């Protein structure tokens, strides 16, 4: 299998003249901006991986004079902390990404939904925002950004739950369709993008798509900021070119005794040692919003699984039955098997339940509980039972 190896990149945190990029974007037409983002192959960096250019194109095509660009900074996936670092270090680049998206789609208003856990960042972010508003006004942009805060609900990272929250309601996901590009925040056409996606789009405008596509693979263009934690001597935030295998990743970041890597957080997949060499980190293999957790042989994968399912049982919004009841039953189920109150074959029933949740749950939360559940149960069955 062809892969790119592990290469460190500096795109997101690179110092650029934001004013210059804004001027460049201001002189481009809406179509030109969208075309460049489309050509770059950029996919959403929050985890779901929807092509960013398409999202902007669909929103731009809507006739409604009121449109919104929303920056999703409700970074709640266990093991993800890169968006905090991006906002902390290069907030003006995030604002610029929003203004460029606004220009591309004909939106004059942007909201940043920041998780409550990051409230301590606000004073500095406001200072930067004030400077940014002044700067773009001088160039001639009619664009304004406001912050909205979360209050400790993981589900509000789901786009429609996030809109509900901004609108002052419980963060319960909506039915789709309609999709946000036609009816999003305040029922207006909305493009909602992750913090890193917006910065990447801004850098694509700065460098041009041809430069950007040199990085990554056909299915996973560019680079990605990874949040690395767990059993590693070098926990932290690293920007890497996409297309490496888990083995190459472990060679660089493991502690020499890595038995599993959880790619994509609690809603992602567990890759066991025997599959490291054959698994590519990216959309052709295991996709990730950036969360990479390494576990060495001293860790019980039952504890890892229990921690994840407990997380979902608490964070499920409770609106739809498959997710609400499913999370609780998965949790009770693995506890029963562990205590010997249920036979080990009961795990097969639980896997079926996880499959049902994937099909029947309303949003991405319930649909992805089965990812971690199945990949841990299938690869570490003995640890879950005994």
């Amino acid at each position, binding site marked *: 299998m062809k892969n790119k190896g592990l290469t460190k990149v500096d795109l997101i945190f690179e110092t650029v003249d934001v004013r210059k990029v804004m001027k460049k974007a201001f002189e481009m037409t809406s179509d030109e901006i969208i075309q460049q983002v489309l050509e770059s192959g950029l996919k959403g960096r929050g985890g779901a991986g929807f092509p960013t250019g398409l999202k902007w194109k669909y929103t731009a095509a809507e006739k409604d004079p009121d449109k919104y660009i929303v920056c999703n900074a409700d970074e709640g996936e266990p093991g993800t902390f890169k968006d905090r670092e991006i906002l902390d270090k290069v907030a003006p680049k995030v604002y610029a990404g929003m203004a460029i998206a606004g220009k591309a789609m004909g939106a004059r208003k942007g909201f940043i939904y920041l998780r409550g856990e990051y409230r301590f960042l606000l004073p500095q972010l406001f200072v930067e925002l004030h400077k940014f508003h002044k700067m773009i006004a001088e160039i001639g942009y009619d664009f304004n950004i406001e912050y909205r805060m979360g209050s400790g609900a993981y589900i509000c990272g789901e786009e429609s739950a996030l809109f509900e929250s901004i609108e002052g309601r419980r963060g319960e996901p909506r039915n789709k369709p309609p999709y946000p590009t036609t009816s999003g925040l305040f029922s207006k056409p909305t493009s909602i993008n992750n913090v890193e996606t917006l910065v990447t789009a801004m850098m694509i405008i700065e460098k041009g798509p041809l430069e950007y596509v040199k990085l990554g693979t056909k299915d996973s263009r560019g680079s990605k900021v990874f949040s690395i934690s767990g059993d590693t001597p070098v926990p932290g935030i690293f920007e890497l070119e996409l297309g490496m295998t888990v083995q190459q990743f472990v060679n660089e970041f493991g502690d020499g005794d890595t038995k599993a890597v959880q790619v994509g957080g609690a809603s992602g997949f567990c890759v066991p040692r025997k599959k490291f060499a054959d698994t590519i980190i990216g959309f052709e293999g295991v996709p990730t919003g950036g969360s990479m957790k390494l576990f060495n042989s001293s860790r019980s994968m039952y504890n890892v699984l229990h*921690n994840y399912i407990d997380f979902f049982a608490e964070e499920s919004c409770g609106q739809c039955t498959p997710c609400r009841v499913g999370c609780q039953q998965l949790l009770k189920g693995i506890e029963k098997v562990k205590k010997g109150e249920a036979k080990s074959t009961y795990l097969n029933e639980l896997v079926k339940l996880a499959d049902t949740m994937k099909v029947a749950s309303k949003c991405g939360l319930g649909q992805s509980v089965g990812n971690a559940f199945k990949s841990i149960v299938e690869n570490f069955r003995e640890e879950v039972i005994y």
Partner: protein
Amino acid sequence: MYQTGNLVKDLAEKHGRRRESLMPILQDIVKKHNYLTDDVMVAVATELDISAAEVYGTASFYTFLDTEERGKNVIRVCKTITCSMKGKNDIIATIEDMLKIRVGETTPDKMFTLLETNCIGWCHKAPAILINDMPYTDLTPETVIDVIKGYMR
């Protein structure tokens, strides 16, 4: 219990009286008083002209919009996997021993409430806690004592 005086009215002036003003208003009340009383939720409902059930329904959805009494300083210890692997239980035991309360409880002088919370985004510097809005990371049982002492003054 606390008296709010003109707080709700002032916040409605600041954030507006539309439905989308609700979260910022509730968040500002919690910032000041750490939790929401029944009285304050009714006052918000009256000010925004919506049902009190809507206000309670919204508030009770969000972990950080507490509807139970909380101390002046709310300590939230991250319990998600990396913090859990890196000694979260020792941190909790130390705080419990120091403040003589268990997780979920508030000290009799209403100075501290101890809670567990889900991932707060500091996995690379685990174990981590939030005290009110401030994160403290790379904690050990020794350093967490100093951190909490800083809030006792």
